[in-house]
């Protein structure tokens, strides 16, 4: 396992960085927000991501993807974190694609993966039913009915839910075992309510009321669906941790830049040792987060059986560090950091939202203790 980027990865990151800073800088995000964009992201950008092959980053070549792996997906999300770029990448190209890859039948893969790769669909991944992430609290049911299924339950704050064409729903079957069901959002019995969040994303709450589904709605390609679900969630965690890392890095960079130039009492405030020590501590924390996020991503690619503890730990660390970096950022900016005009507050908001997604630092710590056997 290597902790350095190979040439291909280096290229991917460089091209992502230059693409995003040109096409989707923070000003673009502000415009989406101020225009009350009903999707919460740019459809054009999503098409561009497809053109560049990003949508197929976890899809095998046979279905049109480039299959670069979870580490590569994380690199992209890290860059998106830096520019606060909203898109269905995480929900559709990471979570839904992984779900289809590890739990879909051949027919389901053939039907859905090319759509994901083409950028022609947005698919949400619906797991949580309560306010805090907890994949064990699943009350949604998908029970057999004739040749098909009937789905009942509610899901909350499904990422990209407002714009989703379909959602993959985590439910329990008639035996109480977890199962994954792919549901068209226009299906009868599906209602959704878009929720505008603090980071100006647009997830949605979903209610499923006696939704009648064909049998092929059930993702039944995995031998062990429960294990597959855990893997999907770990991939999601490591990838959103990478986004949080990007948020932390950029927030830190702009903060350092600010304190070097901001003068008070006749000197740059960066010359005060009080701030210097905190900045050095922050950099140390970011370095730690960077390493463990890389470790989690690589482990998912190379030795996925060992990934659970790394994914949980990376998620917890990236959550904590991104919140620290952004809140320290506001403090070091001072009054202007509180204004909407400066970007640092936007980073703070995204750090909070990304942090709660698929488990925050407290959740991650509990998971690490459990997985470590204490």
């Amino acid at each position, binding site marked *: 396992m290597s902790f350095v980027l190979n040439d291909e990865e280096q290229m991917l990151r460089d091209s992502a960085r230059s693409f995003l800073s040109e096409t989707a800088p923070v000003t673009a995000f502000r415009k989406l927000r101020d225009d009350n964009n009903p999707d919460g992201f740019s459809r054009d950008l999503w098409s561009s991501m497809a053109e560049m092959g990003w949508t197929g980053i976890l899809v095998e070549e046979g279905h049109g993807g480039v299959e670069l792996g979870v580490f590569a997906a994380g690199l992209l999300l890290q860059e998106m974190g830096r520019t606060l770029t909203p898109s269905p990448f995480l929900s559709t190209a990471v979570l839904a694609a992984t779900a289809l890859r590890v739990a879909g039948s051949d027919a389901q893969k053939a039907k859905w993966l090319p759509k994901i790769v083409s950028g022609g669909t947005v698919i949400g991944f619906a797991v949580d039913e309560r306010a805090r992430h907890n994949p064990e609290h699943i009350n949604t049911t998908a029970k057999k009915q004739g040749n098909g299924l009937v789905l009942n339950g509610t899901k909350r704050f499904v990422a990209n839910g407002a714009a989703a064409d379909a959602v993959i729903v985590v439910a329990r079957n008639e035996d109480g075992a977890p199962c994954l069901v792919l549901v068209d959002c226009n299906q009868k019995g599906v209602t959704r309510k878009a929720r505008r969040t603090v980071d100006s994303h647009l997830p949605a709450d979903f209610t499923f009321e006696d939704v009648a589904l064909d049998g092929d709605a059930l993702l039944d390609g995995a031998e062990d669906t429960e294990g597959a679900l855990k893997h999907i969630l770990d991939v999601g965690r490591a990838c959103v941790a990478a986004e949080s890392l990007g948020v932390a890095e950029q927030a830190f960079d702009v903060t350092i830049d600010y304190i070097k130039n901001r003068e008070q009492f006749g000197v740059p405030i960066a010359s005060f040792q009080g701030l210097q020590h905190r900045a050095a501590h922050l950099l140390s924390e970011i370095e730690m987060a960077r390493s463990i996020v890389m470790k989690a991503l690589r482990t998912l690619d190379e030795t996925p059986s060992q990934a659970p503890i790394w994914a949980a730990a990376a998620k917890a660390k990236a959550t904590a560090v991104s919140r620290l970096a952004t809140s320290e950022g506001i*403090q070091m900016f*001072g009054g202007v950091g509180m*204004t*909407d005009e400066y970007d640092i507050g936007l980073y*703070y908001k995204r750090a909070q939202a990304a942090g*709660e997604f698929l488990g925050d630092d407290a959740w991650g710590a509990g998971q690490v203790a459990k997985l470590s056997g204490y």
Partner: protein
Amino acid sequence: MSLETFRKETRDWLEANCPPGMRVPAKGEADICWGGRNWTFASDDQRIWLERMAERGWTVPTWPKEYGGGGLSKEEAFVLKEEMKAMKARSPLDSFGIWMLGPALLKYGSEEQKREHLPKIARGEIRWCQGYSEPGAGSDLASLRTKGVLDGDEYVINGQKVWTSYADKSDWIFALVRTEADAPKHLGISFILIDMETPGVSTKPIKLISGKSPFCETFFDDARAPVSNVVGKPGQGWDIAKYLLSHERAGIVSDAVSGGLNPVGAAHLAGEVDENGQIADPILRGDVARLTIDALAFESTLRRVKDEADKGEGVGAKASILKYVGTELNKRRHELNMSALGSDGLLWEGEKEEDGEAARSWLRSRANSIEGGTSEIQLNIVAKRVLELPGS
């Protein structure tokens, strides 16, 4: 009158006079009564409550009666507060006039200024805002550049203030103005009262990360104020400002610990408790418990400092400790609120008016450790003035 008699009479009076609508906790900023020329009461109850309390001088219980106050002793004022709390009575009037300008005028103002301004503050007729900070000054408050040039018996004022809270809704502003250009940085500043209807005064709200705009920029463009509106002596502004800032700090601290959502309530709201009411996530529960301990310690410290002050020990630079600890604590409380609320906390806008309130309060709390002197400034003050550590 003994304190116990006073307590009984107060309780009876409050019971008889506090309207029912004023006996439920304020839900948000919309329920606060700020007063002022253009104030629109949220309800008849709010109006009646202000009128009745103002008549007794109990909007400003410890101010002298001749200036519209209640003339109560500290002990009596505390009893009043306790009794109001016991019946959940709302504050009849909140204002920067009460918290900040009033104490400054009582200490530094001329008899004429006191008689002119204090009763109007007490009755909620005039709403005040403060004009201290300037763009780019930040913690280096004394580096202000707004200038006042004497022209006959008036100052002609030019410059810009920032972080003028509610300036767009205020009637008058108390501002720091550099009136003696050649004096050293901390001297040469005057504390001037300016009617905001004066020609040349304009104001513009600042949009904050919390989505709200309680703060403004305020511009002075050849605005004129009579010399008689200078509080204290010309050039004494810095001393008055420092005195006033310590009152502001106390205000921020009391905000920091007063009411609002706490993480246990948040966990209940979000359904994140188990069947015994225990916070479901054990790690989060531990974080909340440590917050509770610190909140209890802080609450005890506020009581202690009050007792010490009553005994004649000055609060002095210890106010900086309160400001530092209280605001950092409040930020932690809001962070834990957000963790306890999980995705519920992320809601920004919804159909209900209170939707997004948790997130807005959380974001608002970030300013606590910046406004009224940053945490860094407080730590500097403690290091220098309490611990007497040498300068670097």
